[in-house]
C-alpha cells in the first residue's frame, strides 16, 4: 500500500525529520507514533481539550485536527522542544513552583498554549491569560495555579529567556 503513503518533511523542535505516512494521518499520531514524541497527548480527538496543542509555523494548533500533509515543510514545536540545553523553559519552572501541573496530562498542551500566548503578548492581563488558555481544558487545577504560573513566567526576570 506504499502508493498511499506520502513523504512528509517537517522540522520538529529544530530538527529536520522525514516520515513516510498516509497523508491524512493526524499530525498528533505522526508525532507520537512515527517520531516517538509522546509528550503531546490526546484527550478528545476533536479539538476540544487542547491536550494535543503544538506550535506549527508559530501558530498554536490542535495536532489532532491537522492532517500531516498540511504540515508539509512546517516548523513544529512540541513540549519536548521547550527546554533548551537541559534548562527548563521559564514556564516549566513556573508550573513546577506554582503548582500548575497536577495529573500532568493537559500540561504539555497547556505549556504550548501558554508559550504561544507569552510570545504573542509578553505581559498578558488576567483576562488575556484566561482567553489565551480557554482552548485547553484542565480537570485538576481549576486553572488558578496555571494562571499564576503564566504570570510568574511573564515576570521581568523571565522575560529574556522567554523572548527566544
Amino acid at each position: 500500500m506504499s502508493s498511499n503513503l506520502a513523504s512528509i518533511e517537517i522540522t520538529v523542535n529544530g530538527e529536520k525529520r522525514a516520515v513516510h505516512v498516509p497523508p491524512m494521518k493526524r499530525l498528533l499520531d505522526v508525532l507520537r507514533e512515527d517520531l516517538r514524541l509522546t509528550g503531546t497527548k490526546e484527550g478528545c480527538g476533536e479539538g476540544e481539550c487542547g491536550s494535543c496543542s503544538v506550535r506549527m509555523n508559530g501558530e498554536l494548533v490542535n495536532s489532532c485536527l491537522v492532517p500531516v500533509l498540511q504540515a508539509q515543510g512546517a516548523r513544529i514545536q512540541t513540549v519536548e522542544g521547550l527546554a533548551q540545553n537541559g534548562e527548563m523553559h521559564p514556564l516549566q519552572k513556573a508550573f513546577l513552583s506554582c503548582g500548575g501541573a497536577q495529573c500532568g496530562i493537559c500540561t504539555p498542551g497547556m505549556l504550548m498554549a501558554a508559550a504561544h500566548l507569552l510570545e504573542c503578548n509578553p505581559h498578558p492581563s488576567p483576562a488575556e491569560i484566561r482567553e489565551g488558555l480557554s482552548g485547553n481544558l484542565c480537570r485538576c487545577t481549576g486553572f488558578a495555579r496555571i494562571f499564576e504560573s503564566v504570570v510568574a513566567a511573564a515576570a521581568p526576570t523571565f522575560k529574556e529567556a522567554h523572548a527566544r
Partner: protein
Amino acid sequence: MSAHQKTRVVGAPVHRKEGTDKLLGRARYIDDIEFEGMWHGATVRSTIPRGLIRSIEFDRRIDWSEFAVVTAADIPGENHIQLILADQPCLADGQVNHCDEAILLIAHPDKRKASEAVSAVHIEYEPLPPIFTIEESEQQNVVVWGADNVLKSFLLEKGDVDSAWARAAHTVEGEYRTGAQEHLYIENNGCIAEYGKDAGVTVWGSLQCPFYVHKSLVAVFDLAEEKVRVIQTETGGAFGGKEDYPSMLASHAALLAMKSGHPVKMVYDRMEDLAATTKRHPSRVRHRTALDADGKLLAMDIDLATDGGAYSTLSSTVLSRATLHSPGPYVCPNVRIRSRAWATNTVPYGAFRGFGAPQAIFAVERHMDEIAAEIGMDPVELRRRNFLHDGDTTATEQLMREPVILDRLLDSALAESDYYAKRARFSIENNKNAVKRGMGIAAFYHGSGFTGSGERYLNSLAGVDVTPEGKVRVLVSSTEFGQGTNTILTQIAAEAIGLDYDDVMMAPADTRIVPNSGPTVASRTSMVVGRLIERASKQLVARLHEEAGLGERFTRDEFFEACNSYRKVKGEVVSLCRYEAPPGIYWDDQKYRGEAYPAYAWSVHVAQVAVDTVTYAAEVEDFWAVQEAGRVINPVLAGGQIEGGIAQGIGYALYEKVLLQNGHMVNNQMTNYIMPTAEDVPPIHVYFEEIPFSHGGYGAKGLGELPHDGPAPAILNAIRDATGVGFASIPLLPEDLCRGLSVCESVEEPATI
C-alpha cells in the same frame, strides 16, 4: 502532636515529586507505552438497554483469522468483576442489562482494523423492558435487579422523629435532585496486558487501586495471587473514575492477551470512555424538617434515593456516605434517614470525588436556605444556631471529640467575602439591573477515610525501605493521579526520618513490590496511609538506633551508613506498619451507629453569582473556601486540590449534564458535555485553618473530596438570593433558569432517557 510542632519538610511547598517529568513531557502514561508485537483491543458493546442475546454473527467480508476474539465462554475463571458483590459480568453472557455493556472483545495488530471490526459483529437481541429512573425502579413493575430493584438500603434512626412534628413551630419540606456527572479526566481509561502460561497475567494501566484490579484478575483467570501482577502507570486524572472500572478493562485486555498470545493495549477514545464507564450517581433527596420557634432543629426526616445503574458496583458504599452526610453539620435530637440505591438499566454509577456526599450536601444545604426563607430567618443565622460543636453527637451518635470550629470558619468566610455588605448592595442594585447578583453559602463536613468499619477491614500495610543505592523508598499501593500522593508521602517520610525531601522516592506502584496500603480513595491517603508512613519511618529510625548504632542526632551520611550495616546483618532495610484504629472508634454495622468516620474535615463556601435575566446565563463571579482539614502537608498542593474541586463543583452545578437516550449517553463528546474552561472559573480564595488530627499523618485529615461538596448548594443559594427563586435541581442550565424564572415558558425539556 502539638499544633506548633516544628517541621522542616512537612508544611513546605516542595515541588511535586514527579513534576519535572510531567513538565518535560517525558512522564509515561499508558498510551505512551509500546511493547514489541503488541496488538490492540476493541470492545463490542450492547446497543440496547436490556435484553437477551439471541445470536452473534461475524461478517464474512472480514478475515477473522487475523483477529483474536473473546467471549464470555473464554473466561477461565469467574465471569464477574470482584468488588463488593460480584454481580457485574466481565462480559455479558446471554443477557445485557445496559447499553454499552461489553459483550465481546476483538484484538488485531492494527489498531484501526480492531476498531473497524467492531461494527462487523452483528448481535441479535430479544429486548426486555428497561427502566431508567429512580421512580420507575421504585414502582417495581419491572424488576431488573434482585427481588425488588433495591441495590442497598439503610435506615438510620436517632431519637423519636414522629413525636416531634406536634411540638414544631415550623415544618418545612423540600425535594432536591442531582444529575449524573462525568469525571472527564483528560486521560481516558487505558491499559496494556500480557499473558504467559507460566508467568500469568501482568497489567499496566491508568488506575487508582492496583489491588482492586489484582483481586478481579485473580478471579477472572482463576490464578494464584502471585501469578497476577498489576502496575500503575502515570495516571492522567481519575477522580474516582479509575477506582473500579480498570478492573473491567484490565480483565478485557488480559483475556485478549491470553487469546492472541500477544501483549494487548486497550485505550478508550473519548466517546467510548464517556459512554461506557462510570459516572456520579443521580439522586433525589426529600427533607421534612421540624424546628422550634427559635429556629433550632427538632427533627429531620430524610428520604434519600440514588440511581445505581444496572449493577451494584460501589452503590452500597456511595449510599452509605450519602446517608451519613445527609443531615449536614448540624445538631438535631431526632433524625430518621431512609436511603435506597435503585437499579436501572444504565451504565453502573460509581465512585466520583465526594462519593455520595455532594448529592446529600446539595440537598441539605439548599434545604437550609429554603427553611430560612420559610421561617423568615437569615440563612447564616439559621446555620449558626444549629452547628455541631465538639461535645455534640451526630445522627449516628458519634461524639465529636476533636475540635469543631465551624463558627470560626463561617466568620472567616463572611469576612473575607464581605458577605453582608455585598448582599445589601446587590439587593439594591438588582432592582434596576437585568443582571441580578447574589451571595450564597454552604457549610459542610466530609468524613475522612473509609466509612464505619471500613478501615479496620482494609487493614492496610505500608512502610519504607532503604535501597543499597542510598535512597529511601515509600512502599505503598497508594497511587498518584494528580492529587499529590507521591509528594505528600515522601514529605512525611523525609520529615519522620530526618532526611531531605530529595532523599526519599516512591517505590513503583507494582503489586509485586509494594504492600497493600488500601485503595487510593475516600480522602484517606494523607490521613491514614500518611500516618502509617510516619509510624514506619519513625520505627525504622528507632531500629537503627537500637541495632545499627545510629546516634540520637545524625547526619545524612550517618543514616545511610547505619542502613548499610543494618543491611549486612538483616539482608534488607525495611520497616512496615499496619493500620491501627484510633482509640474509641467503634462502628456497629448492624445498628448503623457509632463512629462513622475517624475524623471530619470542615468547610464553609461562599459563592457570588450573577444571573443575566436576558440570556439566562448564570456566572460564578467570585468564590471563597475556608476549611479545616487538619495539618496541611503541602500548601501548594492543598490549595490546588481545593481550587480543582471547586471548579469541578461549579461544573456540577451549572454546566455538566449527562444526556441519556434509551439509557445511552448521547452527549458523549467534549463538544457537548461541557466542563468549565479557563474563562468560566472565577477567582477562588482559599483559606486553611489547621488543627492537627492526632491520628493522621503529621496531623492531616482528608482533603481531596471536601471541595466538591460545597459549590453546588452555595451557587444555587446565591441564585436564590439573586432572583428569589429556589432552584432544587442540578445541573442548572440556562434553559432551566429560563423556565424557572417563568419568563419564557415555551422552552421544552430536551428528550432525555
